């Protein structure tokens, strides 16, 4: 009994120090207010102020839209890439590398690249649109388009990464299942619908959680591309927290927003993982 504990203790110490202790500190900060004359206990006041803040509501909505806009398309793309490249003969390794390339570019570099692609008028996107006779757009400067522009970058960046997991999932499907379906006379669509997709369900539950966490925890590109603007259009939860803590010096509000974000993420993760239990027991 003592040996396993002893072996685990280094990790436990680090977990406690860098994960659980900060959580305790965040809870303490969230229930206190730092005024110009010292710190005092304020109960749930910070949370009340947080939910009353229209910018926070906006950040919540933005993040929900962003999660929806990144998770679903990048998973669909990942599946499409994986299906296309699962067989794909001699060019297989090369093609996989091509689709995986965006993943290897650091996020900040990718964002800087898109900053120039998105430049109104002179950027690559507007340049080609103009040649086709379309008017360009102020992709990052129009509050209606900025979040969508950032979503496109994220999908482009992440789809290849999720493809890796789906590929692994595809290769784990036993050949017997496919052969049995073939003997039963199932066409390609029926095989995808009734064999491949159900078998991939645990993979998707896992990748879905990763994608969801990414949608909340990745903000580097927001820093590079828009700084949360124009007019709060790309303000995501993490950026909101950063602004409260670093620019407004409001540790209480930032901590409260952190607690809300953590709770949301924990709930969503628990929900997706519990749902993924279903098919495995049924199999």
């Amino acid at each position: 009994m003592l040996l396993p504990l002893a072996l685990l203790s280094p990790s436990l110490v680090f977990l406690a120090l860098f994960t659980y202790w900060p959580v305790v500190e965040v809870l303490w900060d969230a229930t206190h207010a730092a005024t110009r004359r010292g710190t005092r206990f304020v109960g749930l006041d910070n949370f009340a102020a947080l939910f009353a803040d229209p910018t926070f509501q906006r950040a919540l909505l933005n993040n929900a839209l962003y999660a929806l806009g990144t998770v679903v398309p990048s998973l669909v793309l990942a599946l499409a890439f994986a299906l296309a490249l699962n067989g794909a003969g001699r060019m297989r390794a090369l093609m996989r590398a091509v689709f995986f390339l965006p993943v290897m570019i650091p996020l900040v570099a990718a964002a800087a690249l898109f900053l120039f692609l998105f430049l109104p008028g002179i950027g690559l996107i507007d340049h080609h649109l103009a040649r086709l006779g379309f008017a360009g757009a102020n992709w990052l400067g129009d509050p209606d388009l900025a979040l969508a522009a950032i979503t496109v970058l994220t999908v482009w960046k992440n789809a290849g990464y999720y493809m890796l997991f789906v590929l692994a999932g595809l290769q784990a499907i036993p050949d017997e299942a496919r052969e049995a379906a073939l003997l039963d006379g199932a066409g390609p669509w029926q095989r995808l619908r009734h064999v491949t997709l159900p078998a991939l369900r645990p993979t998707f539950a896992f990748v879905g959680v990763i994608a969801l966490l990414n949608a909340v925890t990745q903000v580097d590109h927001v820093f590079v591309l828009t700084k949360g603007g124009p007019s709060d259009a790309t303000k995501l939860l993490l950026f909101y927290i950063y602004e409260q803590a670093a620019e407004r010096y409001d540790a209480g509000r930032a901590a409260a927003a952190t607690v809300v974000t953590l709770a949301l993420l924990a709930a969503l993760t628990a929900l997706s993982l519990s749902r993924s239990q279903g098919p495995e027991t049924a199999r």
Partner: protein
Amino acid sequence: MISWWKGAALALVAAAGLAAPRPAFATDIELFFPVPVDGALARNMSGLIKEFNDSHPDIKATPVFTGSYDDTLLKTRASIKAGKPPAAVIMSANFLTDLAIEREIVPMDDLIGKDGKTQDAFTGQFFPALLPNAVIDRKVYGVPFHNSTPLLYINADHFKEAGLDPEKPPRTWAELTDAARKLTKREGDRTTRWGLMMPSNYDYGGWILEALTMSNGGRYYNEEYGGEVYYDTPTMLGALTFWSDLVHKAKVHPAGEQKGPAVTGAFLAGQASMMIISTGSLTFIRDTAKFPFRVAFVPMNVRQAVPIGGASLVQPAGLSAEKRAAGWTLIQWLTSPEKSGWWSRATGYFAPNKAAYDLPEMKTFLEKNPDAKIAVDQLANAKPWFATYRTVPVRKAIEDELQSVLAGKRQPKEALAAAQKAADALMRPYVEDTALRLPGAE
């Protein structure tokens, strides 16, 4: 027996002392240095610091590049909290008030006194417009290092082509609108060339709007007190409506937020004929533009006026006396007429020290580059830069609304009321602690 470990500890300390031989009296210091505008500033700064180190063997200074002005503020605050502040920081001039209120930077009067100077003699070296952003509550918190104002840049070829005289750039808002209309080119619905562009991203938009407001006769904030801004005023409404009309009525300025690099990019690519942007970009534009260009004062409505921009050198709180002294030596050296003059020629910023313009190198340079002289002349009309408690979020409050107006989502009047409300809420803790804290009330 008890003291065996004391002896061991002493021996260890002594060994550590011997094992790390240090050059006699050398003080290692860091200089936080932002890269706010285009060009080869970082390379120039490395060269400057190398020169300092070679001429000061007792100090070893290291430049640390810290990104934009806003990022530099954050990193400085983080380093102060971590107890490892740099000996000097090149800090955006309008952050000094906030830092002084929070006691994160220290006044330099004791060091000035040690040099045998009075405060007046020290501050008298600089252009007067710079002082309200450096002297706070009668104490010297910063030494101006490089400063800027917005400037009007025009493409001389486009002017000729449109039948305008490039030697007579627009001087009033009416002339500016008129020229912008003539310079704008369209193909059907698509605009292929804009008459005028001005940046409206965070950090830049508020500054340009301040220039327009000042040109409209207005003030932006209370120069004496860090808790008041004048967003919801007729002068600012006029300025914001003017910008909005350029976009939505005259259609000579693109809609939505425009980032600084997009504006200079469009100007350099010939897709914008005029732009209002910092003098800090002057050297970059001069080196890059493939067409003749001119610079001029920012056009006025009521009066000729622009805000200063740029940065001062400050010292964070919590430095050891040794590091403070070394940092002060570096600050004195960097802001001397020779060095700040050299930096001005390398970047396009002004040298804040008036004596820099009496040096022969500067006179020759200005004769060769008359565009740099325009920028200096405009300094006579310059006013201090908006600085309050919580400067960055208070500035973002108006910039968010500016971006909404430029995108056509809000009308100027309601935008200004919303910005004023947000700014007042941000500054309330300070106002309640100072202006509203009356004797005998408690």
